[in-house]
């Protein structure tokens, strides 16, 4: 992943056909692909579902589409040299790899959405973190599972036993929720403001410091982009 061909390193133009790259090279700015990798890793490590990166994803997909078209054009051009063909191959390979990351990112979210479908569809605060399509799928999926449980089991049981939300002391709840106490490795991208630890003390992370903490401790920092999960 570390040897992107130059085409993918270039920031995608915000408007179509704007080719001028005005971002000064001196500023170390994350390329869209690096951003995607960061969000992908965060999503894979976090127990909870994170805010969707719909815009970034859309830009990447547009970019891929454009590059694929360009590659087709260049390949069809009889005058392109051996050297160019080699570069085309690199670009194509890189496109496949970017697609792999996007696919894995979407599937990771899908997995969490299905796992916590009932929790997500009943908790409005989470809805804004999902795209419309994801939210629709969560609702449909949780409905599907409930229908399946009803048809296979619950409708045959006495009426008193048909609830899907028994709250019994000493039994785990029937709606699975993300385990925010799960330990994660957080890497500070900037110096972070102090965060409160479960035992009441506070922790301050310097830039580039890596800590092993429960997820809920760094949840806010992660949302602000001050840390990444590694």
């Amino acid at each position: 992943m570390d040897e992107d061909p130059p085409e993918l390193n270039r920031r995608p133009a915000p408007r179509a056909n704007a080719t001028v790259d005005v971002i000064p090279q001196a500023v170390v700015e994350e390329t869209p692909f690096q951003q995607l990798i960061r969000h992908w890793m965060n999503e894979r490590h976090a127990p909870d579902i994170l805010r969707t990166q719909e815009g970034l994803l859309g830009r990447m997909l547009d970019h891929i589409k454009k590059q694929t078209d360009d590659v087709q054009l260049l390949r069809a051009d009889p005058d392109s040299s051996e050297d160019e063909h080699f570069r085309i191959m690199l670009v194509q390979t890189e496109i496949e790899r970017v697609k792999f990351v996007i696919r894995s990112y979407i599937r990771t979210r899908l997995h969490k959405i299905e796992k916590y479908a009932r929790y997500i569809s009943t908790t409005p605060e989470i809805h804004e973190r999902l795209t419309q399509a994801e939210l629709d799928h969560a609702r449909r999926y949780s409905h599907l599972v409930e229908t399946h449980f009803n048809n296979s089991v619950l409708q045959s049981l006495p009426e008193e036993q048909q609830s899907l939300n028994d709250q019994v002391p000493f039994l785990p709840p029937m709606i699975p929720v993300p385990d925010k106490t799960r330990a994660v490795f957080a890497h500070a991208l900037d110096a972070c403001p102090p965060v409160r630890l479960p035992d009441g003390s506070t922790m301050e992370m310097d830039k580039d410091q890596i800590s092993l903490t429960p997820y809920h401790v760094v949840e806010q920092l992660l949302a602000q982009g001050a840390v990444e999960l590694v």
Partner: protein
Amino acid sequence: MAYGDDATQLVIESKRSQHADSLLKYNDHLVRAVIREQRDLEKLIQAALARLAPAAPGDDVAVTADVVLYQTVILRNKRCLLAYHAHRLDRLKDLYWSVGGALPLLLSAPTTAVSANAAGDLRSRLSPHEVDFLRAYNDSLIDFRSGVIDTEELDLFAQISKPPKDLHVLVRVVRDCGVIQTEVGAIDFRRGQRFLVRRADVEHLIVQGYLDEVS
């Protein structure tokens, strides 16, 4: 037989299918047995509640103990029933994704056995409700896909376990799959032949077991 034995048996079946990485036949018999037990228990609990002295319900220790016992078994059995069904759904979804979301392939006749996943004759092992679930799940995903990535470029159902290293892949045809459009034109894949093709063009055929990767 003690209360809860059948339910335990159900959970053991789930565990076994997890370890064997397979999906056992839907145990309709056992599920019904547990459901019958639940109905009997409900009757017992209602009878016990009726016996409680209406004036001072807490006083009759023996009856209260009965109620607690029945209630505990009922809750446990119910959880076991649901766990059994939920676990099967998870396994079904795994199978579904492992063949790249090719539902017809999954539910088709046993003659077209899927190579690695041995999903052959899956249908006879499912309950009718599970087949319904799978269909509805497939529909929901197709809706989802058209909502998120409405583009030909990205195949949501392709594998996500190994990042691609090469553009091209050498494949051996395991089953005839007819003429496929590829980058270099149409290729008629016939059993036993080998081709060097672009991975993206045939990825879904590899996943579905038509082609075998030659490494």
